[in-house]
């Protein structure tokens, strides 16, 4: 029935912050919000105060693969829109103020960089996103609809673009897009105004293609201070070029054999370059790089070894707090408004943001201290009262500050019950509404011990990884059965009313990763089974009625991602993470292997009942 009811989701975070292995970082134009994207696809919004204090505000869910890049998507100051792109080709447009997803699209290609640009179309200025990635051109995307309009293509040695910079000319009407391809060729496109109606026309070809012999380019930046120099950072060196004719002005080496991952101009004569380990160095450029100096371009034409080297000025180091599992992401942000600082922001795999204020760098300085450092977990720890988890009051561990973690759960609306599996192997069944009330509302219940009334099931020896209530998925199953899987390789059938353990299946050689329900029209025997997937890449059909395993498919070399069914042929189809597809006969346990060649086509052509929502890549 239509109504005025509004459903507001509320999150009970618990004391442990979610993992946030940062893969992209962005500071909004007004300098008030830091946006970080992580390898799991979530985006975190952090508030940045004028005194450079950072506080996480919101976590945006939506992407299904790791975030590859973030960019602003709007020029106006009242709207703060950003765009995010993921490994799987998804692009989302978000409103930073309230975290809404405004637009979503999925392309066939992965972007590794996006930059916002305003084109004049007729009398108006329209926002465009210039994207580059694992394809041999630069895509021009509409910033509002996320539609691909046209592309900047190259005629000479077209190849993937590794980095790109937009040079805005203050003198002429023509702006330039300068990009470096993966083979070290610099490409230049002239971009000015779009003729309206240009959307479906021919691609734009490059003005110039010049090999500059830079391998493994990590970033390219145009100096907004001199309007003349271009910084190209490669993994083992960095170079400054004259943006007028792309001739080499200066070359800097690597420090202690470390790998550079990016850099930018801090001022007209200083650059900051950062490494894979998270350290950053500020260099002072020689006079031959500065247009204002008399000896500008005095080194042009010389071999790399004969150029005047830059002088190391400062070191910015991270204080090692947590061990990192992948290189941190560092970016330099320079605000041109008065109150905005020049900030070096670094996000790492432990969910930590490090900020250095490089606004005033006096001439004599050896090491610049970090201004702010905060991790998501530290922000959680600072909160008083602590963020509550759903069954914290029942999960108290003696001699420990932290409650027992919930590692799996299933909500059973028919009985109004929430079933939670925990890291010690116990399973707790609680009345859902009363449990939520305990965390969200104050009242008499806070004084009662052992509230809410609950039942504990013990049987697993270690963390519970999956829970399934089959009757909820299909009414053909007995209402009593609750199924659990754990890291102890076992699957247990419980009677949810009496709390009895009915049977333990120990057929797998790995932790249980998924519990699934076969579709309706399977054979009579399979209809009373549930399907279990384990980390030893095996799939089992466990009969709840016969209390035994009727089929174990275990020859897969790669982790199982998706299970599909074809009941009419008695087929169980297993899709693995490498794209291979195995077809098993449920009755006999025989199998056929289809290689990755026909994977996508095979799964599309045979119409299977889908039991798992995710699909092969």
């Amino acid at each position, binding site marked *: 029935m239509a109504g005025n009811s509004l459903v507001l989701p509320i999150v009970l975070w618990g004391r442990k912050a979610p993992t946030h292995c940062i893969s992209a970082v962005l500071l909004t134009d007004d300098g008030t919000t830091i946006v970080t994207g992580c390898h799991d696809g979530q985006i975190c919004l952090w508030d940045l105060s004028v005194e450079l204090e950072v506080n996480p505000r919101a976590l945006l869910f939506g992407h299904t693969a790791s975030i590859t890049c973030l960019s602003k998507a709007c020029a106006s100051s009242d709207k703060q829109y950003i765009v995010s792109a993921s490994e799987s080709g998804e692009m989302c447009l978000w409103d930073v103020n309230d975290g809404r997803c405004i637009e979503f699209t999925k392309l066939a290609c992965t972007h590794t960089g996006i930059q916002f640009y305003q084109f004049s179309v007729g009398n108006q200025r329209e926002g465009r996103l210039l994207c580059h990635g694992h394809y041999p051109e630069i895509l021009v995307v509409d910033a509002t609809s996320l539609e691909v309009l046209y592309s900047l293509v190259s005629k000479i*040695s077209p190849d993937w673009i590794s980095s790109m910079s937009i040079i805005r000319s203050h003198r002429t009407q023509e702006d330039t897009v300068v990009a470096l391809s993966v083979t070290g060729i610099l490409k230049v496109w002239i971009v000015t105004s779009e003729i309206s109606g240009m959307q479906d026309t021919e691609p734009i070809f490059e003005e110039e293609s010049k090999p500059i012999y830079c391998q493994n380019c990590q970033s390219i930046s145009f100096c907004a201070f001199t309007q003349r120099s271009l910084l190209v950072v490669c993994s083992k060196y960095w170079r400054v070029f004259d943006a007028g004719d792309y001739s080499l002005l200066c070359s800097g080496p690597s420090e202690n054999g470390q790998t550079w991952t990016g850099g930018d101009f801090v001022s007209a004569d200083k650059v900051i370059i950062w490494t894979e380990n998270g350290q950053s160095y500020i260099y002072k450029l020689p006079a031959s790089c500065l247009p204002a100096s008399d000896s500008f371009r005095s080194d042009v034409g010389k071999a790399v070894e004969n150029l005047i080297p830059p002088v190391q000025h400062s070191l910015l180091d991270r204080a090692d707090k947590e*061990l990192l599992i992948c290189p941190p992401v560092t970016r330099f942000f320079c605000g041109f408004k008065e109150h905005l600082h020049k900030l070096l922001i670094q996000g790492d795999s432990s969910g930590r943001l490090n900020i250095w204020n490089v606004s005033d760098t006096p001439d004599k300085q050896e090491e610049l201290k970090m201004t702010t450092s905060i991790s998501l977990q530290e922000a959680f720890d600072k909160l008083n009262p602590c963020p509550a988890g759903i069954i914290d009051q029942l999960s108290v561990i003696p001699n420990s500050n932290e409650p027992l973690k919930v590692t799996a759960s299933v909500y059973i609306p028919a009985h109004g019950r929430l079933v939670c599996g925990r890291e010690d192997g116990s399973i707790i069944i609680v009345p859902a509404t009363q449990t939520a009330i305990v965390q969200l509302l104050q009242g008499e219940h806070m004084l009662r011990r052992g509230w809410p009334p609950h039942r504990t099931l013990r049987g697993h020896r270690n963390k519970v990884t999956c829970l399934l209530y089959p009757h909820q998925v299909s009414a053909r199953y007995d209402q009593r059965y609750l199924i659990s899987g754990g890291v102890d390789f076992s699957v247990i059938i419980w009677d949810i009313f009496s709390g009895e353990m009915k049977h333990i299946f120990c057929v797998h050689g790995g932790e249980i990763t998924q519990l699934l329900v076969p579709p309706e029209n399977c054979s009579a025997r399979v209809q009373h089974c549930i399907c279990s997937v384990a980390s030893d890449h095996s799939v089992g059909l466990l009969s709840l009625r016969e209390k035994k395993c009727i089929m174990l498919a275990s020859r897969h070399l790669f982790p199982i991602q998706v299970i599909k069914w074809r009941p009419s042929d008695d087929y169980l189809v297993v899709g693995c993470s490498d794209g291979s597809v195995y077809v098993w006969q449920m009755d006999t346990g025989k199998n056929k292997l289809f290689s*990755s060649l026909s994977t996508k086509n095979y799964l599309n052509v045979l119409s299977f009942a889908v039991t798992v929502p995710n699909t092969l890549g």
Partner: protein
Amino acid sequence: MAATAAERAVLVRRAGGAGRGGGRRARALTAGLSWQEEEFRWLLHDEVHAVLRQLQDILKEASLRFTLSCSGTGTEAPAKQENFILGSCSTDQVKGVLTLQGDALSQADVNLKMPRNNQLLHFAFREDKQWKLQQIQDARNHVSQAIYLLANRDESYQFRTGAEVLKLMDAVMLQLTRARNRLTTPATLTLPEIAASGLTRMFAPALPSDLLVNVYINLNKLCLTVYQLHALQPNSTKNFRPAGGAVLHSPGAMFEWGSQRLEVSHVHKVECVIPWLNDALVFFTVSLQLCQQLKDKISVFSSYWSYRPF
């Protein structure tokens, strides 16, 4: 950075000239390490590097297969040219000799015998025209990315946690899977897209308006497809339904092009195995298995700990 207690214990043991054997476990326990910790330590410090070395060798071999025609390093040595004769064993209506240079076709010599009148048609690329096979360039670039990820992780690099190795393996496997998918999954194009593609305009003499040509890589084979079309009469009783995208269209597929409605009457597909692509695919498969096996070995220890440093 100062060694952890565990590291110091192992160093002391090693310095004492300890050998393997039955006394090992007793020694390990007295030094404060359980046998699981010792095994994990061996895995992280020795086995991982052995596997990574193997991986690097295999991927270097794979990348050599994709000869670069222009690397921008100053030496613009053109890639070697290879000729492939594409034919079909069942019929000889279409025969093609395609010349592959790196990631582009530099020449395509196509002979077509029209079924109706046995007329022999011959087409070839115009002078200096090349048709880039994007699939090969993409696969090559993905391999380069995988090699770059492994570049700074040789013996001198110390892995501190199992999670770090897993993350590295995930990243490498993603690139290798993408490289392989680019070769095994050619683009699905609609017939208007094939008609509009630049390939149609590359031939001399120009292709007649009732022929469409498409070239792509499928697994380890170079494939040439020729579609013969006929116009659908405006008063035809056939139900017009434009065909969607496909790798290979079947006879009977219809589409609209310009002001005409056309239908595919014959499809000719000829192919030829490219030996070095075959090698590359084998290398991808072997590398992926190596990576997965290493991940499985590390994951065994995840029950005990994921983020403890060693």
